[in-house]
């Protein structure tokens, strides 16, 4: 069995006799027959794993593009339907209510304080 230090990590790995680590520069003689070296199956690289592997969820952009490009005349801020409408109505309620509350508060704040 021959060994060398792997290029980047400098970990001990199996090696062919001719590439083996020989610090004293003595080239080992080629053995009559070297045993077959079996290494653990390397982990699969994602790019080789096929199209079904996904990282943190699948791509839903094409579906969303289809949804938002339907020509139904609905403006962008309501295009998703119910959740958009709910949020819009809440925001509008706060806007109108808030504006009125503000005017009332400022009216009272503007009253002179009688000592």
């Amino acid at each position: 069995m021959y060994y060398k230090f792997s290029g980047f990590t400098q970990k001990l790995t199996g090696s062919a006799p001719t590439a083996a680590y020989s610090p004293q520069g003595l080239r080992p003689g080629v053995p009559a027959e070297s045993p077959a070296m079996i290494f653990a199956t390397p982990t699969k690289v994602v790019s080789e794993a096929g199209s079904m592997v996904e990282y943190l969820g699948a791509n839903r952009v094409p579906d969303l593009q289809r949804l938002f490009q339907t020509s139904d005349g609905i403006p962008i801020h309501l295009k998703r339907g119910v959740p958009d409408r709910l949020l819009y109505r809440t925001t509008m309620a706060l806007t109108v209510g808030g504006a009125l509350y503000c005017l009332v508060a400022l009216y009272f704040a503007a009253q002179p304080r009688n000592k």
Partner: protein
Amino acid sequence: MAHQAHAYHMVDPSPWPLTGAVAALLMTSGLAIWFHFHSTTLMGLGMALLLLTMYQWWRDIIREGTFQGHHTPPVQKGLRYGMILFITSEVFFFLGFFWAFYHSSLAPTPELGGCWPPTGITPLDPFEVPLLNTAVLLASGVTVTWAHHSIMEGERKQAIQSLALTILLGFYFTFLQAMEYYEAPFTIADGVYGATFFVATGFHGLHVIIGSTFLAICLLRQIQYHFTSEHHFGFEAAAWYWHFVDVVWLFLYISIYWWGS
């Protein structure tokens, strides 16, 4: 869209400019009401409305760009101009606070003891946490550049990891700065030293939080496949803003923390 004979974006009518304007009215009036009548209701209402406006307005922009394809090259150019001009306006904003600092520190008045730092002020050691903060932000500048290159090269996992690391570094900076604020031997009320220190670094900290939030949105979008290797302006805008925040810190560190100590 199929029906227009030009490459520009004619936006759908939108309620968000109105709600945003009302939010500004409520926040400013609410501030006055808080000061004079000790009630935070109006201001809180304004802040809630502001958050709702920001969320829905920017959500709509994402829909218009990523899902409807309205962000053609000329439109994107306009968005780039817009972001550059906005960041330039922020530069001028900070310039004012630096002006204030240099005005007071270059010619310290007799009331301060004729010296800077003023008599009685023990400034923070610039080579302790502030130096760490500098390293953290510089490192985050590297990671955000790494994220950009990952996006351009179509490396999904690396882009997500480097962007997440950038955001973590941003949070780490905010945490460290919060600790510094808590432990500082002087306050904002400690004369012009305290005032210039906390107003300048405080606004900077706010911008770090805003920048981290912008980057976090970009992380969510990257995970959801919004960015392509050719078209990812939202991320570029966030990265520009982040570099701006980093540069402001460098000026703060050199001027206030180091020269001013």
